[in-house]
């Protein structure tokens, strides 16, 4: 089997929220019991390492970037490799050193419990994450390699005086030694160590999660350009993520103007980011649980049996992470040598480098006894789009769908009990994947779908938010532990990546929003080092990209 490692890059605070949930759910799902071997090839996203004390570590192959002050109680050095530091003032002559200690950021209960070996079962404790989480490290379960951590010192998290808010601030930051030198070198080191000796083909891919409403769009755009220059053969899949809520104040007239201006700035950052991504990435898939996305996130996407607060990034990012974790299984399974490159090449045909994603969480059998019955009674679309301003529909699509957590026993009734089912053509299908494939073939037009089925459900144990309605336990009808309350909690999930004309509509709406903005009214962009031609170019790139989605054949 070829090695097909992926390096994940996360740019910005919301991306790190999504990333945190993603790494958390993966690690919650690790099977430490060697008797049952995992379907998932964890080496794709993780790496094995060695501490100074010769302890083996298994940490995400990851680089993340955030602003000063955003880590709160998480030390930059991590807690895996750092030697337990003794009082360093002891090493120094006290006359020569002044010690300045910032107020200690106390760890929340969850983090304390993770640290203490006495507390064996974090799943049994109740935590008030909804109140307690102010940054992503508050609910971080994963432990990072120290090299994963990249903190920008020039800008401070949540400081209005030194905002990191416009695209060019990010592009110029990329030129600083921290990125030009250190960060690029870290990418290179990760790539250098990738391969396994039995590999006959070697391939390194990149995942990028990036905030795109602020200057991180600029930083990641520059990074994308670098990746294109230095690793041109590698696949690069970008997920621009957008929060579903911005806490702008709008009580006074002045604040309302400010809020409108903020909206425009965000749209400009997104447009500039998207145009850079479309030029250098293999594929990019914008993600948000806000249905509109551009000027305002818009009403939140609804998921049956789920009740979530879209104002909490802790909630919304969990949904996005669940989708990522599910559709990425396609290129992370031990049983197949399908790679990220393969996926991107199929989805980005005809220069369609933007795609959409969808999620059905939980994938409930809706009270049916089996999948066949469930699909037979299914009403409406199978999944919910999580790409803003994009309704995926059922025509002219090319799509990769992954369904996890439905067991083969739940496929259909055995012949002696099947009765009416016997008459359905789908009764012939003898796997989850083929049945779902057949369903998609019937329910979509002019589309090609590839279905992957995975046994393992999504693990939604603490610290995953408790967003499932009580009914989910009964209706989803899959987990033996019905209501996610205690112990192991698993839900089946369906998620997909799609490309087709609706993505053109999405680009169209972003283009229109961007064009309406009077760029000259936002001197921060020029002051940050941009030229107004770049704005024009960005509009051109978007409209060229959009043209790739016009199906000009007549049926």
């Amino acid at each position: 089997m070829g090695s097909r490692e992926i390096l994940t890059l996360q740019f910005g605070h919301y991306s790190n929220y999504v990333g945190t949930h993603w790494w958390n759910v993966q690690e919650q799902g690790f099977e430490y019991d060697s008797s049952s071997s995992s379907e998932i090839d964890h080496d794709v996203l993780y790496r094995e390492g060695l501490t100074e004390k010769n302890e083996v570590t298994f940490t995400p192959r990851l680089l993340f970037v955030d602003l000063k002050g955003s880590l709160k109680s998480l030390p930059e050095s991590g807690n895996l490799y750092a030697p337990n530091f003794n009082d360093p003032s002891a090493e120094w002559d006290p006359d020569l050193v002044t010690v300045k200690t910032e107020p200690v950021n106390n760890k929340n209960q969850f983090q304390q419990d993770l640290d203490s070996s006495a507390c064996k079962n974090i799943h049994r404790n109740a935590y008030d994450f909804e109140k307690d989480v102010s940054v992503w490290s508050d609910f971080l379960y994963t432990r990072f390699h120290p090299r994963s951590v990249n903190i920008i010192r020039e800008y401070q998290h949540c400081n209005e005086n030194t905002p990191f808010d416009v695209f060019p601030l990010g592009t110029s930051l990329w030129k600083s030694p921290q990125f030009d030198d250190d960060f690029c070198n870290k990418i290179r080191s990760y790539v250098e160590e990738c391969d396994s000796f039995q590999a006959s083909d070697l391939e390194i891919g990149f995942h990028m999660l990036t905030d795109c409403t602020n200057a991180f769009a600029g930083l990641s755009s520059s990074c994308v350009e670098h990746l294109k220059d230095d690793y041109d053969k590698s696949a690069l899949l970008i997920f621009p993520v957008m929060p579903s809520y911005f806490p702008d104040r709008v009580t006074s007239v002045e604040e309302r103007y400010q809020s409108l201006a903020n909206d425009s700035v965000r749209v400009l950052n997104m447009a500039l980011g998207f145009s850079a991504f479309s030029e250098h990435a293999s594929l990019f898939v914008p993600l948000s649980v806000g249905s509109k996305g551009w000027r305002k996130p818009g009403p939140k996407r609804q998921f049956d049996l789920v009740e979530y607060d879209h104002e909490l990034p802790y909630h919304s990012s969990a949904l996005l992470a669940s989708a990522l974790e599910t559709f990425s299984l396609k290129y992370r399974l031990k049983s197949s040598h399908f790679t990220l490159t393969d996926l991107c090449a199929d989805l980005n045909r005809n220069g369609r480098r933007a795609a959409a994603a969808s999620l059905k969480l939980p994938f409930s059998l809706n009270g049916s006894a089996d999948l066949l019955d469930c699909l037979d009674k299914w009403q409406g679309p199978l999944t919910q789009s999580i790409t803003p301003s994009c309704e995926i529909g059922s025509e002219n699509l090319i799509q990769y769908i992954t369904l996890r957590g439905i067991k083969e026993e739940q496929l259909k009734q055995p012949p002696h009990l099947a009765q009416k089912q016997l008459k359905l053509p789908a009764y012939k299908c003898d796997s989850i994947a083929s049945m779902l494939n057949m369903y998609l073939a019937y329910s979509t037009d002019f589309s090609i779908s590839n279905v992957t089925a995975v046994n393992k459900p999504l693990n939604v144990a603490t610290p995953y938010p408790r967003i499932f309605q009580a009914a989910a336990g009964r209706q989803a009808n899959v987990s033996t532990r019905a209501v996610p309350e205690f112990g192991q909690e698993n839900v089946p999930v369906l998620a997909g990546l799609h490309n087709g004309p609706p993505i053109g509509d999405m680009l169209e709406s972003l283009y229109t929003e961007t064009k309406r903005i009077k760029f000259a009214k936002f001197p921060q962009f020029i002051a940050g080092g941009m030229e107004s031609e770049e704005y024009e170019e960005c509009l051109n790139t978007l409209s060229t990209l959009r043209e790739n989605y016009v199906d000009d054949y007549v049926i």
Partner: protein
Amino acid sequence: MAISLLNPKAEVARAAQALAVNITAAKGLQDVMKSNLGPKGTVKMLVSGAGDIKITKDGNVLLHEMQIQHPTASLIARASTAQDDSTGDGTTSTVLVIGELLKQADIYISEGLHPRIITEGFDKAREKALEVLEKIKIPVEINKENLTDICKTSLRTKMFVLMLYWLLKKDDKPVDLYMIELMEMQHKTETDTKLIKGLVLDHGSRHPDMPKSLRNCYILTCNVSMEYEKSEVNSGFFYKTAEEREKMVSAEREFITQRVKKVIALKKSLCDGTDKTFVVINQKGIDPMSLDMLAKEGIIALRRAKRRNMERLALACGGIAVNSFDDLQESHLGQAGYVYEHVLGENKYTFVEDCKVPQSVTILMKGPNKHTLMQIKDAIRDGLRAINNVIEDKAVVPGAAAFEVTVNRELLAFKDTVKGKSRLGVAAYAEAMLIIPKTLAVNSGFDVQDTIVKLQEESRLNPEPVGLDLTSGEPINPKDAGIFRQLHSQEADHQLVLGDCQQFITRG
């Protein structure tokens, strides 16, 4: 705005209010930074809320590390660090001077002087200060003695000065700083930092059978892929069987094998039957099968080398970095006496040493923990930048506060020639300059007033610039003592500081 046109007093009142807030902020920053000015200043250890440690004496690093909430304080920090990013020095002084200018302005504004008049005075004073700078600067011939002196005041740490001295000594031409690699190594017990006449790479070979060290090496530096790249993608819609796939792979792989064979052929012709050995350092990838072939020939092969190191390698060992293996020749190769691997935990390092006339070197920093390494690295980066600036400016400014003392003297004289109330701004500016010698005195344990009086008196009598000797507290000629500062940092000080100060004074 309309109100202030009708009633100028209103603007004064508003400005005074805003200024009061700004001064508190500036003072807060000043208080933190004061104690680390000059060679007698203290080192600061910052412990973050999460327990991360940072040790530094550098104003720039300090400002970047601190969590600053106050808007004015963040702006001051921003202005000061911006200047440092280009010069690598002078942050602490900038913060102190900004704070002092605001304090001086406050005295006059609280007495009813219009803020705009103050800033007018500042403008005039700044022009004068820049004139003084032009007069006082000392042209430098670029040679190792002069540069070493400059590093001494800029870096203060003997070890680095010594190293840089070595660096420069090898060559009479200015050194291309780009060609110095900084390599850090975290090590429990070793803490020395040394100069490697060659290159240290932060990776090793990826094959268990490759030699761990070689002597008398030919070095092939290249940017040629030695890994199989899938040309056809494996579509999820048109599924291929594993066997079909293997067949396709082996056909395509043959192409890469031929490449590797070219390298092996050259190695055989040059090394077999001699005591010479062969090392390949590639910017592109080398896949396991290629590594295997090279290992069988006793070749050390490194993949994914840093782009910058390609050029550095050629300068350190000779030869050129090749982009193709077609007509590969001996003249393309570099040479090194000793190449060996060093393993530390999960990190591997490869030393390419004993190069005959290395034009590129590595500063290898060893320290027990991250914060010590960072501190060394910051200091070295600053030092290198300082040298660079001096080479560019071809001039320096006398240090030990001589420039500030001279500006103070000149401005006091100039003040009397200024008509109207804006001379008060000039006076304020003159006074503010003294914060530098004052702080240097405090940090060295001398009485502030005594020191200032002595310096001002000596400065009036002496046509040469007068600075402060930090061991005796007496005036000295910094030129004789070999204490210099970068022209860059001083100039920027006055350009930048002012723009920002005026904003703080006139607006909230």
